[in-house]
């Protein structure tokens, strides 16, 4: 699914923010990504969702070495990766339905199919009453749920979430985690970057821990522990 080999990353001429990162994620695995602020979590996620190219090392996504993958093939690969951004990145002028529908529109899905799936998912995340609302009228938690719905609407093979439960109360956080687990059960590989140790402990999936740009993997009592260093 995803393999990093001796990956290093630096911005410009600055110091390396990631050093010799080695890991692989098996299809259908579930991992937490932890680390203090500035440890390189967001950079690692950006490398995973192909927004950055490493300064050294090799990255294989869906069994393809991205350094030699033609640029024209990358959009198809990105369509199989769902991302929940820490700052949500909802588009202000679009309604809730339109925001969530974006990945489907981008991948060329039929309008009727888009409408049906989007409404169903939004009802599931408790936003069935806010279908035509603009992001600016939603609370932080509601915006986060829209961002999550947008990331999962396409049933991605790989779901990457940066602090997806940061702005919601514990009840909604657990509910969202169940959504991620549900997706994981249907075959989606999930990586969740979080500071929430309660959730990490409660759900018990393996933890990829970043400390000053170096990655270690801590195995736990995950039902499908398939990470390897």
């Amino acid at each position, binding site marked *: 699914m995803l393999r990093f080999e001796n990956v290093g990353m630096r911005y410009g001429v600055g110091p390396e923010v990631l050093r010799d990162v080695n890991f692989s994620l098996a299809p259908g695995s579930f991992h937490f990504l932890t680390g203090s602020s500035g440890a390189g979590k967001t950079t690692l996620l950006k490398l995973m*969702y*192909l*927004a*950055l*190219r490493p300064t050294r090392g090799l990255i294989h996504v869906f069994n393809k070495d991205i350094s030699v993958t033609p*640029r024209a093939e*990358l*959009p*198809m*690969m*990105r*369509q*199989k*990766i769902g*991302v929940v951004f820490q700052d949500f*990145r909802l*588009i*202000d*002028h*679009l309604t809730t339905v*339109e925001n969530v*529908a*974006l*990945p489907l*529109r*981008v*991948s060329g899905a039929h*309008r009727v199919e*888009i*409408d049906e799936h989007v409404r169903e998912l939004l009802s599931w995340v408790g936003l069935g009453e806010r279908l035509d609302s603009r992001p600016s009228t939603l609370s932080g938690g509601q915006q986060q749920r829209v961002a999550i719905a947008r990331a999962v609407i396409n049933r991605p093979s790989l779901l990457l979430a940066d602090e997806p439960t940061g702005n919601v109360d514990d009840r909604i956080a657990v509910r969202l985690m169940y959504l991620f687990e549900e997706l994981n059960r249907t075959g989606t590989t999930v990586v969740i970057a979080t500071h929430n140790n309660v959730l990490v402990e409660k759900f018990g999936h393996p933890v990829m821990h970043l400390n000053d740009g170096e990655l270690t993997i801590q195995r736990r009592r995950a039902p499908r522990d398939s990470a390897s260093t």
Partner: protein
Amino acid sequence: MMRRTDIPFERDQSTRFLPWIVALMVFLGTLMFALAMLLASAVDAWDSTLTGRMTVQVPVQAASRDNIDTLVATIAATPGVNKVQAVSDTDARALLIPWLGEGVVDSGLPVPALIDVETTPGAKIDPVLLQARLEEKVKGVGVDDHRAWLSALIDVARTAEVLAFAILALIASAAVIAVVFTTRSGLAVHGAIIELLHQMGARDAYIAGQFQIQAMLLALRGGIAGGLAAALVLLLFALIGRGMDAAFLPELNLSPVKWGLLVLVPAVAVAIAMLTARLTVLRALARMP
């Protein structure tokens, strides 16, 4: 109801001016194209009117009936001549009226006799040789194939025509530059959304297509306005031209086909705007990972 575009172009201030710029370009472009077509048709008209025609001029003192008959018979016997006709004194004087006025012409001004010669299409008669032969019959006869002044006139008209097309090309270039800057500004303003779409797996063509549609709508608005304004000006000129009686001025009326061709100017402007926007976006996106 899903939106047409994911990018909120209506919030982009820089796009406000594009329809005005395109309107101005289309207005000037349409006038230039019309001018080029008018000049081309004027040149053709002058050329076709005078090609294949010669005028033999007989001095007043030699313009007797016998001399003219002799000259007509000599000319008619020349290979390549299709038709020869002596111009009546009344007709010859009538030709001078636009230049000298009725009073002067009717005041007994001596007018040389004229013989109108029409050559067979494709035939080439050397006016110098013909003149030499006619002078053997009647001294002082002149042969004019109108080439001397017509070629100078055609040269001027052709130069003006080339100039009009060059200006048209400059206008098109200016339109391209305006669209490039507007599109680049749009890329900068909507960078975050473009990055998001890119990350979701939007192909470059998907994003470029949105800019292309926006450029089309803006250019269409400007193109229609500019085209209509130019059409009004041309109609006005046509009306003015209808009242004028200037023999050698080009016809200011355009044929229906040429009016149809003028519609191409806004259409081409829209196509240029769409293509420019698309290529600008594709070029910018190619720099993304």
